């Protein structure tokens, strides 16, 4: 309040000092010679500027600001949309990869099982064959084993009869020789 009052006082001081020193320089502001001219030109220039600004320029600036705002929010919206889309795509892609991985795993497992089965089968058949061979060979050996004493006896009987004939020139009875050979072979066993 005091400030305003002092300003008012200052103003009147200027007015009165102007009145007192009208012709001795003083303040040109208080010389009323061009007051009306200044008022007139102020109204003309300010009025013109105001009308052009208000009717042409400011609406355009406001429109520019609005469109920019709208454009930016549109762009942000679009970006958001595209982000979501790309996220979905990434999910899809991930799913696809997971799926194909599973498929590959399954395929691998299946193949492995199949191969194992085949291998087992082959091995089984081979083992069977081998067993058969072994059995056969064992049988052969068995028969051979079974047959051999008979043959040996026969050979022994023949050889011993030949030996006896050569040594003493007598045909010994076959049956007695065989009895002796039997006796010896039994003793050995």
């Amino acid at each position: 309040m005091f400030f305003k009052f002092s300003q008012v006082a200052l103003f009147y001081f200027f007015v009165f000092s102007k009145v007192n020193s009208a012709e001795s320089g003083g303040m040109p502001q208080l010389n009323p010679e061009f007051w009306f001219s200044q008022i007139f030109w102020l109204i003309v220039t300010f009025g013109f500027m105001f009308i052009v600004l208000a009717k042409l320029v400011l609406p355009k600036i406001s429109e520019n600001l609005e469109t920019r705002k709208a454009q930016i929010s549109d762009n942000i919206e679009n970006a958001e949309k595209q982000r979501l889309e790309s996220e979905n795509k990434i999910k899809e892609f991930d799913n696809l990869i997971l799926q194909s991985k599973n498929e590959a795993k399954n395929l691998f497992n299946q193949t492995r099982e199949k191969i194992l089965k085949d291998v087992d089968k082959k091995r089984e058949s081979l083992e069977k064959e081998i067993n058969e061979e072994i059995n056969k060979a064992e049988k052969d050996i068995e028969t051979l084993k079974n047959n051999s004493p008979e043959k040996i006896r026969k050979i022994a009987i023949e050889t011993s009869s030949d030996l006896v004939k050569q040594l003493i020139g007598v045909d010994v009875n076959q049956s007695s020789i065989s009895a002796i050979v039997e006796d010896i072979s039994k003793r050995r066993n």
Partner: protein
Amino acid sequence: MASNPMYQFNVYRIGPEIKIGEIDLSFTNASLFMVISSLAVLIIFNLGSKKNSLIPNKIQLLAELSYTFVSKMISDTAGSKAKPYFSFIFSLFMFVLFCNMFGMIPYAFTVTSHIIVTFVLAAFIFVGVTVIGFMKHGFGYLKLFVPSGVPVVLLPLIVVIEVISYLSRPVSLSVRLFANMMAGHTMMKVFGGFVISLGIVGGWLPLGFSVALTGLEILVAFLQAYVFAILTCIYLNDALNLHH
């Protein structure tokens, strides 16, 4: 005469004398700078609004920043109801600002250093605000002079003070701008005169002062335009949103 610090405020006729009746409406140096200022405002803001690119160029940025600056100032002080008066306050701010700033150019004339110019602006604002106040609130606008919560005993005194304060608004508004501009320019002229009169030996100190004062005056030129506009907003706020 030129060394008189008040000489810079002289108004003189440019071109022929124009008289309508007894009234002299001649084109003067003051008129010239009013025309220059308003045209500069128009040119800058026209250029700034011409092209609408998403990323503004410098002049467009300037125009848009000024626009948002003033619009924020108005909505902060006078609320959303003051929107219809945006164009006027924007023009007022720009006109005062450009007149002040053109006045900072050496040998230029400062339009706002003349009391008659600032007084006409302030008086127009005063009348306009008063009319708006009475149109919005009828005689209820007179409640402005009766603050709430004041003891009844003090009321007559307060009302008188409020009325005086209200009536002194145009004077304080106009004198504030005019006195600031005039004082600053006078001071710069005085210090400039010291530079010459003290010569090569002693002139450096006032020269430094002159440089500092130039910076200060540019600040004052902006500040006073801002103050002028924001006080207009405050007065408008009183008229639009009656608080008392």
